Each structure stands twice: as C-alpha cells, then as structure tokens.
C-alpha cells in the first residue's frame, strides 16, 4: 500500500510492512496532561464506523441501558466472510474510551453464558438492539446486573421468542 503527499517535497511511499491510514487527522492541540485522552478519542472517531459510539455514550437519549437485549455479530476472521452471532441481555457496560466493553448474558441450553465484547474492535461487525431496556419504570435499576447470575427472574424469558422473530426476519429479508 503506497501513498503520496501532494507537496513539492519528495513523496513518501510506504513499503508493504507499513500501512498508512487513509483517514489522517490533523494534529490536535494537546497539553502535557491530556495527550492520552485526545489521542484515544481520535482512535474512537476512527473506529466509530457505524455510529456505535452513540449507542454507548453516557448522555445520548438513544443509548443502550443495562437490561436491553442485543444481537451482536462478530467476524470470525478477517480473511473469511463468516460471522458468529450472540444474543443476550446487557449486564455490564464499562466505558473506558477506546477500550469500552460490554457484557451480554444468555441461557444457552440451560447453561448461562456470558460474552464480553470490545466495542471498537474491528472484528465486531454489527450491534442490533432487539429490545431496549425502556425508561425509568422498568425492572432494572442498576448499572451492573450481576445479580442476574443468581436471580434471573424473568429477564431471560423473552429471549427465545426474540431469537425466533429475528430468524424469521432474516429469512424474509433473504427472500426479498
């Protein structure tokens, strides 16, 4: 992959072992203290390909609350097209800039399975909200729902039907 500047100066061509990101940001203003924050925010902007940053920001009215049901599609490898999907209830959101992660929990054949996803990973293909957690008068009044491991209640009951609905939608979409 080679690239060149338009300046009159000698052009820079990158050898094969170096890649140059096509989207380069102009150098931001940094002070001694906020360098890491500024630089990681730039990387977040670069990784925020499909608006996933807005889904997990702190203030956005359309953000995902703990207790929502998500369907996450991840690439198995960059070389292949095949993906894996995992559906589950969001039990934890850990906001750390570029390293923001969230955990989904589901009951797979009566076995509780949790999976943690890095939000800005290039292997994370898409996030689909199957059921938003709703407003203030829903059952989940906590940021971290680890108690669902011992007292699931009715949290996982609707997941089966949501999954079937999703599969039906997929089949319908394929037909069209």
């Amino acid at each position, binding site marked *: 992959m080679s690239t060149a500047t338009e300046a009159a*100066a000698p052009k820079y061509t990158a050898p094969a072992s170096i890649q140059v990101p096509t989207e*380069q940001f102009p*150098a931001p203003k940094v002070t001694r203290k906020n*360098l890491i924050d500024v*630089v990681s925010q730039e990387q977040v902007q670069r990784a925020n390909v499909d608006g996933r940053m807005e889904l997990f920001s702190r203030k956005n009215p359309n953000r995902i609350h703990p207790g929502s049901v998500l369907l996450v599609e991840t690439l198995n490898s*960059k070389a292949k097209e095949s993906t894996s999907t995992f559906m589950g209830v969001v039990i934890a959101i850990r906001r750390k800039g570029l390293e923001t992660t969230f955990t989904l929990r589901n009951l797979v054949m009566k076995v509780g399975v949790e999976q943690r996803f890095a939000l800005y990973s290039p292997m994370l293909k898409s996030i689909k909200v199957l059921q938003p957690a709703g407003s203030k008068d829903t059952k989940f009044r906590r940021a971290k729902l680890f108690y669902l491991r011992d007292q699931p209640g009715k949290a996982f009951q609707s997941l089966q039907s949501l999954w079937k609905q999703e599969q039906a939608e997929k089949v319908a979409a394929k037909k069209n």
Partner: protein
Amino acid sequence: MNSLAKLLPSITSAVATRSSRPILSACLHSSVTARQAASTADQQPTWTPQSQRVGIIARKKGMSTFWDEWGARMPTTILQLEDVQVLDVRTEEKHGYTALQVGCTNKKNVTKPVAIHYSKLNVEPKQSVAEFRVTNDALLPVGTILNAAHFVPGQYVDVTAPSIGKGFAGVMKRWNFAGLPASHGVSLAHRSAGSTGQRKWPSKVFKGKKMAGRMGGKSVTVQSLKVLKIDTELNLVYVKGCVPGFDDQFVKIKDAVKKHGAKRFPSDTLPPPFPTVKDADLQAMPRELIANSGEGKDPFTTKE
C-alpha cells in the same frame, strides 16, 4: 494531506515541531564547532548491519490498546518525544569512545553555569540527559532535533527506565516467597521468610540470601518491544506491551540489541533512517504510520 505542512508551526511548546535545525551561531564553544565540522563534512553515511544508531529519550505517557490489521488486540504504551536534541558528541580520539549525548524536555529555571553551558551549544536547557553509544558513521551534529520518525514501524526496540519504587518490601512481595500457613498454630510469622540456613555447618548465612529490603526504583530494560505505530506530528512512538516506570517518566529507547543488524527492522524498510530521519523525508511523511503485523497470514484461521 498537503495541509499538513501548514498545520505544523507552533502547536504547543511541549511538543517538538518539525522545524529546521537551529542555526549555529558564532558563540559556540570551539571544541563543539570542531566536532560539528567533522561530522557534517562527510557525505551522508550509509547504513550497514553493524551500524548502531542513536537512541532517544522519551516520556512514558500511558497505555492504550491497538488492533492490528487482522483484528488481533494488543496492549500498547505511548511514548512521547519532547524537544529531544543531540547535546554532545563523544569521539574516539578525544574521549576514548564514540557516543552521542541526548537531552529531553526543555527546562526554564536553571543555574547560571548550566544556562551558560547550554547557551554555548545554542540549545535550550534540558531536564533529562543521557548518552547513547553509537558507531562512527552514526554521529550527528550538536542541536539535531530527533523525531519519532527515527524509528520505523515494525522494528524492535529496547526500553530502559527506572521501575516504580515499592519501598521496603517484604520477602513475599520481593522474592515471591510462600510465607507460612495462616492458621494451625503459626504465631506472628505468616509473611516471614522462615529459616535462613542450616546449623553447625556452614554456621553462617550465605551472601545474597533473599531477604526483605528495598524493591524497585532500579533501572530496568525491557527488550525487543515492537514499534506498532509512530505519530510524526505529535512525536509519539507506540510500543507493544509494557514499559517500566510511571507515567511522565523519562525512558530511553534504542534499537534492540538482541536482534542483530538487519533483523531489527522489517526487511522492506531497510535501510532505516540513518543516522536519523532527514528533514525532507520527514516533511513528506503523513502523520500516522502503522506497522503491519508482519505475519502475512491470519492468526484466527486454523489449518484445515
């Protein structure tokens, strides 16, 4: 991308910009002028696998995460070059060894002797100063500004810094001793070392016996860390893995010693910027340069 050149000047005072080398004024010390003349009079030296380039001093800014082109995630430490300049040249004839003295981070309030010393070099006073042994062909004139582009993405570096001090550490923390059981009659010795030797023979404790004492605060070198990315405008070097010391610590970075000659650098980036990156090449470079993983194949596919 051509607007990069226009955005350069005066970003902040804490960041070394890609300005041209300072003009050598007549007030330089005579020995410095002589050394200057000697090194710039030669033709541009060519890199050989036996050449040793100068290292740099940087500041550890913090850690972040990095995904390579295959989607593999790895931790990365961000190191920033702040006003890194060559301060002195040590030669075989005069000093008995060949080295370059490098300084990092400008400093305002210095004593008069120090201020005069730096004014003769036409360089601002520096907070951290260190020497790097180099070969004769890798010498640079005094006042040369070193940039992050001195390193090639994909190469291996050694990073040296004082480790975080742990104070007077007990034997379990310092030497990973197991201590004694928490119960079953053990009195007041749960974290102690236990026995320190035998009995009548040798009737002494061996020298170097592992005991409690001060831990940390010593110079530690982490070897063969891969450079994942460089930022030529903010002067950042992204290195894979961890680096000793706390944030804003001064660290010394140099080319890996355990990778010999040509193996330090990816084969298609040879020769590396030698003795350091040229101004013309630096102006042409885009801001961010990222290393490919160098594997060539996807780590997530299994052999079927």
